[in-house]
């Protein structure tokens, strides 16, 4: 198949998925798009928002539309790692002998909904680390590969709520995007009421297959990004490092740690997906800028001063975006 046809197919598939999701999810177009971008780039998503905003519904709908197996794990304080990964249990063979057999946990699926992930203890949360990064699970001394595609779509309540445990930095860094789900607008809320409090059932159609998703992920990796565009992503990430040559005054004042290299990877991959969605065959500065907040906001660690003054990572990233010139070369050219 020609590249152009593959691109066309990608756009069509993406549009169809979006349209199907819109049948269930009212509003939150940017959240839907962000989630889909993450999936196309092969990354995991952390959805943050107060309960009742449709986070779980979005993930469940997504699995339906994409035609992928779906597992939901409700994280609670008493949830144990084995409840997620699986465990060896004693089973009796037909010949009457007993042996251990690995009972797969809910992690063995293509789409994982980690609901209210920050309600579990850090020990349990960290059970997800290997699965998210290595796409494999080690249990009973045996490494078991997870079938691709593998996405973790986690939801969490704002961390200042009662009974929550903040996710460790290492785990946060493994999320491709962190999307903040806000309250719906007035008309969106009215539409939600219409759809949920009146008779009628929405029929969802499967828009893609497992193989389609894998093809789309492969296509995304092929999208070219010019060196100066990659350099922009690099400079943006470096600008989050206090004391670096690109750091802004705000970075120096309010950040304790900046983004890891995963942040730069996320920026470029997400920008590639966005470029395809925008009808281009190359990544632009604008693509990078547009995905900066969801890609990096959860990777920055604020210092005490920032927390005391109510400074958020979004503010710092906006500041960097304003102050760091995209086209450094044009500046060198004297214009």
């Amino acid at each position: 198949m020609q590249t152009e046809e593959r691109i066309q197919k990608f756009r069509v598939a993406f549009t169809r998925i979006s349209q199907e999701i819109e049948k269930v999810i009212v509003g939150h177009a940017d959240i839907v798009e962000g989630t889909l971008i993450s999936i196309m780039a092969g990354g995991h998503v952390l959805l943050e928002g107060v309960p009742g905003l449709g986070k779980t519904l979005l993930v469940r709908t997504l699995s339906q539309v994409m035609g992928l197996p779906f597992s939901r794990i409700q994280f609670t304080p008493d949830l144990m790692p084995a409840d997620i990964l699986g465990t060896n249990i004693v089973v009796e063979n037909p010949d009457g002998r007993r042996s251990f057999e690995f009972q797969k946990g809910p992690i063995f699926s293509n789409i994982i909904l980690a609901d209210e992930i920050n309600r579990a203890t850090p020990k349990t949360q960290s059970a997800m680390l290997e699965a998210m990064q290595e796409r494999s699970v080690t249990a009973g001394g045996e490494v078991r590969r997870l079938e691709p595609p593998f996405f973790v779509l986690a939801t969490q309540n704002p961390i200042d709520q009662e009974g929550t445990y903040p996710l460790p930095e290492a785990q946060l860094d493994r999320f491709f995007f962190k999307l903040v789900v806000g309250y719906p607008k007035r008309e969106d809320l009215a539409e939600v009421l219409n759809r949920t409090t009146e008779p009628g059932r929405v029929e969802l159609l499967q828009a893609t297959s497992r193989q389609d998703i894998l093809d789309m992920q492969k296509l995304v990796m092929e999208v070219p990004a010019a060196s100066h565009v990659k350099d922009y992503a690099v400079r943006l990430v470096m600008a989050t490092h206090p004391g670096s040559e690109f750091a802004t005054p705000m970075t120096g004042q309010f950040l304790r740690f900046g983004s890891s290299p995963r942040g730069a990877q996320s920026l470029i991959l997400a920008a590639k997906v966005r470029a395809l969605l925008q009808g281009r065959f190359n990544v632009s500065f604008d693509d990078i800028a547009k995905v900066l907040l969801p890609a990096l906001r959860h990777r920055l660690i604020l210092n005490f001063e920032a927390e005391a003054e109510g400074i958020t990572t979004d503010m710092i990233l906006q500041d960097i975006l304003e102050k760091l010139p995209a086209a450094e070369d044009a500046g060198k050219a004297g214009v």
Partner: protein
Amino acid sequence: MSEAEIVRRSVARARRVLILKRLWTGLWRSILAGGVMTLLWITAYKLLPVPARFFPMGFIPAAVAAAAVLISHFFRLPGQRMAAVFLDTTQGLHERLSTAVEMTGRDGSPPNPWAELVVRDAAGAVAAVKWNHLTRWSVPSAGWWGLLAMIAALGMSFVPEVRSKEFVQEEKNREIIQDNGREMVKVLKQTWSAKEDTVSVIPPEALLKDALELGNQLSRAELRKAGAIKKLDDLSGRVRDEISRLEQDPSQQRLKELASSPDGLAGNTAGEAVRKMEALRDALGNAAGKIDQMNAMQNEMESLREMAEQMKNQLGSPDSTASKQLQAAARSMEQKLSEMGLDPESINKALEALKDGDPEAFDQAMQEAIGKMEKAIEMAQALEQMEQELGKNLAEQLQRGQIAAARETLESLSEKLSDPNLSDEERQQVAADLEQAAEAAKALPQLSEALEQAAEAARQGDMEEAARQMAEAQQMLDQVMEAFQNAENLQEMLEALKRAQAGINGGRKWGRMNNGRGPGGGQGMGNGGAGGGFGTWSDGSDPLPDQRTELQDQSGMSQAELDARGLSDRDERFQNDRFSPDQIRGDLDQGGSMPSMPLKGIHIKGRSNATYQEVMSEIRDSEASTIDQSRVPRAYQQAVKSYFDQ
């Protein structure tokens, strides 16, 4: 045209625009750099005590900075990729062009399907580029800041400088020192070069070298006021010592005395005058010095002419009594003229006219003879006057100290002695002249002895010995003259040094002093309108006050004689002489401590406000001025001078 070619051409076009824009920006940045540097320099100049002569130099870094900034924009000119980025960012092409340029192979063809897609996309986007937007020229922010800096610099130039009085005074002093040094060197060079051409006499080389070096130091303002005065004072002291050394020579002492006489010492024109005198003597012959006799003869000639006029009718015949009487008188007159060495030709003509019985021709010849006699009388009078001025002979010239004239006369006598046709009488006369001269030159024993031996040799007819002795005497006269010239030159050098010293000390430029006198060529005493000359008298060369056409700046004038005297402006009745200092002790450097100042019983402690050199220089200046104005009797002048100069 292929899509890759479209992209390539568009980028090339964008590159040209970008280069022009870069240079345009560079121009404004250079204005900013130059403007800021200029502003900083002018501000620094206004606030810091930077000497005025450095002010123009401060603009050099500004110009260099501006040029450097402009030139830097000619380097690292944008390449293809940069031009593509420029086009992408200014035209909103979302990095299509720059990605296409990066992905295009060296041969300009897309190497893979993705590159092909990107190039095609970029080529399509190029069609939407608004090239006219690219070529809009606007002043960049750097340009506005640059203009602002230039305006601020211009405004700052009108702000008066913040300068301390000490600094202003120091600058003024420096200017005055430079001027005096420059002029002193000029004067020294002019004086010595003139002397070299004429008498080949220069002052002691070391002193001249030092004086010129000091003058150059001053003209470069390498010395400050106190240092300059001290050095000038030191050098003046050395020159004075040298003059004193020369003056200790008795011959010089004698010559100096002679030089101060109204006749003056031999000038450079003395030789000429002597030669003129010789010529007059030759022309007059024995008639030289016989003016009375010549007057008498002229009267006789006029009487003869009158008689001939009265007896005109009787002169038709040469044998008439009247004619014979006149012929006899004419013969007698011819004889007298011949005896006096005058030309009797006109009288002979008159005699012939009488013999021819032609009274008209006689009258004409007599008129001619009277005219010649008048001329001879005038020549004799001129000779007499010159003899009075220069001395009629060697003895008199030596007596009067007319060395150059004496040298010429000696040479003339030497030539006369070497003449083979010289009569004994003339030889004896030369010997007598030499003897008299030896007597007159007693003050110069060696010269006197040489002349005496020459006279003796001449008397005995030993011409060779006489010539040798006379040559020796001439050489001695040359040495004397040279030494005197040296002293005179040193005196001139001393004057120049003193003038520079006085100028620096008094804060006056060289041109304002006019050799110790006030502006306008006069001493400046009195109402300030005095011209040249001494004291309050004008030599008439200056215009009268109402004839002056331009204003005169007299701010730099210092008229010490008009300054208030004493320590107080109080009326004398209220002044106490106990407050007049009679001793000063302690460190007298300016600003230095002055431990005590006894004032006839009262002790004042404080700090001196004048350096020793300045005070001494002022005193010497005042001393010279006082002597020049003849306030000191002639007999005491040398004593007063020695007192202050030691």
